[in-house]
């Protein structure tokens, strides 16, 4: 079954595309996968998903397995450049199109889809300055070694250098299978030890949820504000809850990013040049705005804020929108 009016190979259908992932667990990654699936379905693509367990070596293997499987294009979703560059080149050499999401494979023939972590962090910090000025004591939640977090960290480091009045009193964090509750325990200790902290910068929603738990348990909601990145239905609930200290988050819609990744692969297969970068711009979501618009879920968000629910990146007339 082909797609009427589409360029080859989509006119004949039966196109296999592989999505090789670094991480599968978590809301962001699940929503991304759902968006990718929906877009693939709309395009008549046979999408093969290689799940990730945050195992870079395994991801390499899976790229090779995708090649062995005979995929026409491979979308590489996160990962470590060092462990992927050579296998990605191997795929290109085998005549397979490669698209990368949020991992810089540094090859002219590999377009990069980005949700722009830099913009994400910058927008959140702009909001921090707008609400708190440039002189305050902050807690920063961070764990090194995760590419998006590292990119967001670079922005925070530059921000501190630019604003000497911003004092980082405490830095902690953990990524585990109980991230939120462990971060909550850490945040409680840190906030107790440093009662002057007024801003918590938590550039990952799991961190923010932990921080919020801590602030609520310490009854500091009227004193401490939490700024974060990423969003999910559950997050929206927590942000808009009465008395929530979680005042803003900056996010892209992961489902949209997933769809964009697949569309980029499809365009590449159809022979179109995409340029080196395809960026999906993040949106600032403040507590006030969300409450005002009565947004409760991601679906509401898609409906109320069109820029959130849809991206013009990597589109073409013959590509049907998902769902």
């Amino acid at each position, binding site marked *: 079954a082909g797609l009427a009016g589409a360029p080859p190979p989509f006119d004949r259908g039966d196109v296999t595309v592989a999505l090789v992932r670094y991480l*599968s*667990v*978590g*809301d962001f990654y*699940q*929503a991304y996968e759902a968006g990718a699936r929906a877009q693939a379905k709309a395009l008549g693509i046979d999408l093969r998903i290689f799940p990730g367990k945050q195992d870079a070596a395994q991801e390499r293997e899976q790229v090779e397995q995708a090649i062995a499987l005979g995929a026409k294009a491979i979308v590489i979703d996160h990962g470590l450049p060092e462990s992927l560059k050579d296998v990605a080149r191997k795929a290109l050499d085998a005549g397979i199109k490669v698209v990368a999401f949020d991992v810089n494979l540094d090859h002219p023939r590999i377009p990069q889809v980005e949700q722009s972590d830099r913009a994400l962090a910058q927008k959140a910090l702009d909001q921090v300055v707008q609400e708190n000025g440039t002189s305050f004591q902050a807690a920063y939640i961070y*764990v*090194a070694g995760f590419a998006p977090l590292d990119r967001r960290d670079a922005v925070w480091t530059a921000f501190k250098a630019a604003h000497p009045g911003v004092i980082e*009193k*405490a*830095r*902690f*964090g*953990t990524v*585990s*299978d*109980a991230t*939120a*509750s*462990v971060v*909550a*325990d*850490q945040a*409680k*200790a*840190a906030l*107790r*030890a440093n*009662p002057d902290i007024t801003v918590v910068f938590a550039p990952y929603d799991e961190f923010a*949820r932990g921080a919020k*738990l801590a602030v*609520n*348990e310490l009854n500091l909601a009227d004193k401490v504000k939490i700024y974060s990145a990423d969003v*999910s*239905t*559950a997050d*929206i*609930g*927590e942000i808009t809850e009465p008395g929530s200290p979680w005042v803003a988050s900056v996010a892209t819609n992961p489902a949209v990013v997933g769809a964009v990744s697949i569309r980029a692969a499809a365009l590449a297969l159809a022979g179109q040049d995409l340029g080196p970068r395809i960026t999906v711009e993040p949106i600032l979501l403040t507590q006030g705005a969300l409450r005002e618009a009565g947004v*409760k*879920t*991601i*679906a509401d968000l898609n409906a109320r804020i069109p820029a959130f629910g849809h991206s013009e990146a990597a589109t073409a007339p013959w590509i049907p929108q998902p769902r």
Partner: protein
Amino acid sequence: MASPARAPKGASSLRRFAIDYGLLILLVGLVVVFAVAQPAFLRVNNLFSILQAVAIVALLGVGVTVTMIAGGFDLSVGGLAAFVQMAAAYSLIVLDGSTGSTILLCLGLGILVGLGNALLIVRLGIPDLLATLGMLFLLAGLQLIPTGGRSIAPGMTLLDGSVADGAFTNAFLALGRHRFWDILPVPVLVLAVVAAALWFVMDLTRFGRVFHAVGGNELAARLAGAPTRAYRVCAYVISSTVASLGGILMAARIGRGDVSAGNGLMLDAIAAALIGYAVLGANRPNILGTVVGAVFVGVLLNGLTMLNAPYYLQDFVKGAVLIGALTVTYGLAPKRA
């Protein structure tokens, strides 16, 4: 037992003291150091938040301890707690269940998993480590299936496209968040009650003796008339039920169903149970020791965070102190020939 162990040969009393109280002294020492460096450490509130932080790990550890007393092992507790946490969220949010029915469901699941472990281990004779490892994987996978791997939050879209319209009830949330007299968190109370009850049963009643006997020499226990298989089944059911209690408290604290595997919980719970070996020179699994073990780690982590030690030092310090404590306890103990 292979060959009868001789009675310890008169260790000097100072050494004996170090063995029995080494870990407790270290704990007190830590508390003093932290308190001096950061006065906020000693505030009652902070102490209770340490307890709150370790309550779930300690609960799971206590469960594992019961199976260890009965001569077994349970690797599945962490996975089960995570699973139950998802099940609680599913019941409340997707099925729109009441607080009571959710708790019953969760405990029921715990009992079921315990019976499953027991079936594999006691009935089919699969080695305990292996059977509970299999159960761990099974649960880690199972919890993801109803929602296709996504977390469960109010208003989420289900696999069939409909929208979940339930929510966490306030009564349920209180299980993880309420503090009696603004001080004592519910999970700490639950831990205290469960640990006290199991300590009482294991150390003071004849049922506890049978558990210990089954763990020490099952054949001797059976020949003395004890229904050893029933006790072994019981140990796994207790361990799973306690773990599911842990899962309920976790769900109540987090306020949604979080996709997670529970690996870290498992290691911490086992570490607590194993550190417990060394408490009061018991040199065997014991309920109180496990709780002390969990508190020990909790104090350490809380104190380090208060001192703003970099997060990446924490694992190191945890390992170093663990090994240090053990070296004192075991290294000083008189060696057997």
